[in-house]
Every structure is written in structure tokens, then in C-alpha cells.
């Protein structure tokens, strides 16, 4: 899930840069600044700005899902360390007694 989120963000960055930004900056500054409301040029600019606003938080969200998964993995390690430690402590007297009987 984290990897997919990061991949979606990467694809969104590619779309922004290759499709919209390339098209938008192909025009002169005069044309860009003078674009009328409802024109394709202005729609392109709006797409670039609005996509930029959500794609970076999405990327961070993907990375934080990775970190959250590390947290779950470590919590699982903690659970197993406690379980194994307690089990060893519980069976150790019996093992010790068995060794004493055999020797």
C-alpha cells in the first residue's frame, strides 16, 4: 500500500512535469500572463498548481505508511521477544531439574 501510494505520487509528478508543465512553458511569458479565463493555457496552469498542492502530502503519506509498517514489524518483534523470554524462564527450572536427575 505504501509503495503504491509512492508510485501514484511519482506518476502524478511525471504527469505534472511531462504533460502540463511542458505544454504550459512552451508558450511565451506574454501569452502565459495574458491567458484569458477559461482558456486551455490557464486550465493547464490551474492543473499544475492544484496537483502540486496534493501530490507532495500524498508522497509523505506513502512514506509514513512505510514507517508505520516498520512500527508494526517492531511491535511484532517486541511481542515475540517477550513471549520467548517468558517461555524460556518458565521452562528453565524444569530443564534444570531434568538435567540434575540425569546426572
Amino acid at each position, binding site marked *: 500500500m505504501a509503495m503504491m501510494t509512492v508510485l501514484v505520487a511519482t506518476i502524478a509528478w511525471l504527469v505534472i512535469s511531462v504533460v502540463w508543465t511542458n505544454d504550459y512553458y512552451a508558450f511565451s511569458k506574454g501569452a502565459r500572463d495574458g491567458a484569458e479565463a*477559461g482558456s486551455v493555457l*490557464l486550465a493547464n496552469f490551474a492543473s499544475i498548481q492544484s496537483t502540486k498542492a496534493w501530490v507532495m*502530502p500524498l508522497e509523505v503519506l506513502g512514506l*509514513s505508511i512505510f514507517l508505520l509498517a516498520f512500527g508494526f514489524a517492531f511491535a511484532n518483534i517486541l511481542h515475540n521477544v517477550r513471549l520467548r523470554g517468558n517461555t524460556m524462564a518458565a521452562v*528453565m527450572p524444569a530443564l*534444570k531439574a531434568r538435567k540434575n536427575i540425569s546426572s
Partner: protein
Amino acid sequence: MPTITQSSSQDIQFRAAQLPVQVTGMQAMASKMWAPFIAMGFMIVMAAFIFGLVNSSISSDYYQFSKETREAAAADSNLATQKAFIGSTKAWLPSFKSLGMGMILGGVTFLLATILGALRTGGAGVQEALGGYRLG
């Protein structure tokens, strides 16, 4: 020798007070803090993402207008308010996201410290069971 209890998850566990060696103060603090830190960090990152979506929607509305109209917007007009929101969000949102990531990393660090504490008390429990010396 401490007595053992059986939890519902079939794990054999000592109660903390029964352990022969206690965790250090830092490890005790870390064992309480790791879960809230990770949860709060993830919530902050989620909130940042939602703010990003809101900012995206407002940016989309704002940039529908021509540059001339945007720059001629009067104070307190809808366009000026939108511009102020976009500008201020750009200023604080990256730091907010970093705070969330930092809290998650802090939580993971606390979790590692908790694992160290579990190794310490687990080892001491085994040593106690073997009839060895108490460590702390």
C-alpha cells in the same frame, strides 16, 4: 521465582512487578510513549494530506481566473482570501508534515528502546530461572 500467568492470547507472561530486573527509566517511558507517538504522527500526516487536498481545491478555483484579475483583486475579496489561504498553507504545511514524520520516527525509536527493555527483563527472567545472580 516469579509466578507466571496465562493471558487470553495463550502467551505465558510475567507481570511487570514480578520481574527480577526492572527496565530502566528511559525504557519505561519509551514503552508508554511509542504507541501514542506513532498514532499521533500518522494522524498529523493524514491531516496534512487532507489540508493538501483542500489547498488543491482552492488553488484550482483561484487559478481559473486570469493573471490580471488575480493581481487586481481588492483586499478582503474572495480572490485575495484564497490567495492568502494558499500562501499561508504553503508556509506551514511542509513543517507540519515533517513534524508528523518526526513523531513516527520518534515512536519507532521508542519502540526499539522498548525492545531493549524486553531483552533486558527477558534475559534477567531466564537468569533468575536458572538460579543465577540478580543483575539490577
